């Protein structure tokens, strides 16, 4: 579904990703872990098409297409979804208006008719219930004055409604208490499907107790230095990133 080859990304001329490879197939859940500054957020933003993240080398194929040729909105309509680490506040724009505009844009791409107000409301209410979200949020401006946890749940709500094919979650658990984390993790697990792929980007191992990935990658200094099964998380838990980074450095020298 997503094949990243030798990806180099620079911001303001400074290289952050230096030859990153990934191969993610439908039905899989991948986790990408790495210390601060390893390039996790850069990878995520570059995949979503953020301006200023310049791809200087390499390729990204998504559903057999060149992802890098698509605008951010085209990527979204093709089924790519990024749950933001820091969701943006949009004053004056209600969640209801925002979600409906987004959903209709994506449905149009799929050749489906726009959802009418009643059907839309029914869908959103059901999903909000599932996330234990207060319905009154619907008429509030997007993320404005939301707590950290409410913002994160709002990202997950969008994921549930837009039903994307490739889900990239950037630190979806930061700022969540243990109860909220459970609602969020359950919703993400529920999205697992043979037709869908999920990429979890996280700094901490905690989330992986709830969502067990098929593959775990360790990102360091702009490239994947180690990949393995879910058990790799426990290794990281015990030894930290230092050991793996040292191993990788040793390999490079050799």
């Amino acid at each position, binding site marked *: 579904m997503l094949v990243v080859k030798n990806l180099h990304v620079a911001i303001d001329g400074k290289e952050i990703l230096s030859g990153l490879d990934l191969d993610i197939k439908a039905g899989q859940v991948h986790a990408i872990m790495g210390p601060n500054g390893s390039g996790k957020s850069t990878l995520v933003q570059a995949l*979503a*098409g*953020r*301006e200023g993240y310049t791809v200087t080398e390499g390729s990204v194929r998504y559903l057999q297409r060149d992802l890098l040729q698509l*605008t*951010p*909105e085209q*990527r*979204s*309509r093709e089924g790519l979804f*990024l749950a*933001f680490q820091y*969701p*943006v*506040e*949009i*004053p*004056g*724009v209600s969640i209801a*208006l*925002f979600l*409906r*505009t*987004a959903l*209709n*844009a*994506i449905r149009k*791409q799929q050749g489906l008719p*726009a959802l009418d107000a009643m059907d839309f409301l029914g869908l959103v209410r059901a999903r909000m219930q599932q996330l234990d979200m207060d319905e009154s949020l619907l008429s509030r*401006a997007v993320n404005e004055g939301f707590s950290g946890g409410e913002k994160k749940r709002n990202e997950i709500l*969008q994921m549930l409604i*837009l039903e994307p094919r490739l889900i990239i979650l950037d630190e979806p658990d930061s700022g969540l208490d243990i109860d909220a984390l459970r609602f969020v993790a359950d919703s993400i697990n529920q999205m697992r499907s043979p037709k869908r792929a999920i990429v979890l980007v996280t700094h901490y191992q905690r989330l992986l107790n709830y969502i067990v990935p098929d593959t775990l990658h360790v990102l360091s200094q702009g490239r994947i230095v180690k990949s393995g099964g879910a058990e790799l998380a426990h290794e990281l838990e015990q030894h930290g990133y230092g050991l793996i980074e040292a191993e990788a450095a040793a390999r490079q020298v050799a």
Partner: protein
Amino acid sequence: MSAQLESWRNMDLDHVPHRLAGYDTPWVLAARQSAFERFFLHGFPARRDEEWKYTDVTSIGKRTSLAPDTIPPEPSSDAKLLAWTLAGEGVHLMVFVNGHYDATLSAVGNLPTGVRLESLSKLLDSGSRLPEKFFERHHEHTVFSSLNNAFTTGGAVLIMPANVVLKAPVYLLFIASGHGAAIYPRNIVIAGENSQATIIEHYMGTLDVHNFTNTVTQIDLAADANVEHCKLLEEGPAAAHIGGIHAEQAAASHFTSHSFALGCHLGRNDITVKLQGRACHSTLNGLYVLNERQHMDHHTRIDHLVAACVSREYYRGVLDGAAHGVFNGKVVVHAKAYGSDAHQENHNLLLSRNAEIDTKPQLEIFADDVKCTHGATVGQLDEDQLFYLRSRGIDAELARSVMIYGFADDIIARVKVASLRTHIEHRLLDRLPQGELVKELL
């Protein structure tokens, strides 16, 4: 440089308003004459005048005529259609064409006992002295109110007795018609103690109307009265519009003003509020959405004359093309007005490099123990917000429109009359790319 003689200087009051309203009423004639003399003495303001520094009105002075029509032309079919639609919406509708009351298009409907909603021209003709004191008031730094005194052809007079609540809004529709007309509406609102009313003033023109509108509205609020006033400026793209709204508040009264400026070539609103009784609340809201070479100037002045009053101002602007906006918000806290609480905000969104805004808060405080704050911002659309919307499949153009809508709706949402709110939202969206799409989703 030889000064071009402004044609109005050839004008003689004896020649102009042959049959203006109140012609046979001595005080009216005297008031018109002295107003005209006052105007003649000052002439139009020049840009060296601090209060008119950013707004150049010489084009108005160069008009061939400043005299109002005696018989108004037929309104456009768009205007008639709007009048008919409004008549069906349960408002108390008065329609004016080029400042003349049009009884056939109006639909005042049933009013609660004691409420009077009348045509000013009829009152003036009848010799009533009721409007006299309003013609004697001199308003803040504008000769335009003198010009209005001299030439007004009519408007609405609303008188609310004590303790009466007018549920449906009074809707005053001012239609500009024909070519190059000079239009002088004058409205007077007298809100009795503990009465409550909503007044909407809607100015509309058509594409080819090159008119000059000079309008004055005076609102007196007795103790505990509650008046919501909404002015909607949608004149034609060649129109000049100079308006004054002047409120005087007695104790514990509530006044809310909304000023929406969407259409006209050159516009100016002077909004003044005198807080004369304790514990008054006054809120001035405004939104200007400008494009091409439109110019819109809002000058507000709030006088805290006595203690313990609260004033709020929320103004926003969206400026595109080579448009020019001006916001000057003056708050004067007089010596006895201790415990005053005044807050003012003006936020502007510049969508083009050639658009310009001059924003100036002006606080003059002569009392102790007061709380006065203000803030003004000028900025562009936020890139993070734009990317967030695009990352959800919303294309860049639509995303920008949604963001502009969100910015402007902060002001529109303050209007209490739902149908008016929708009307304004739609007019805003009509001007934004893919606005139709947003309309469907609201």
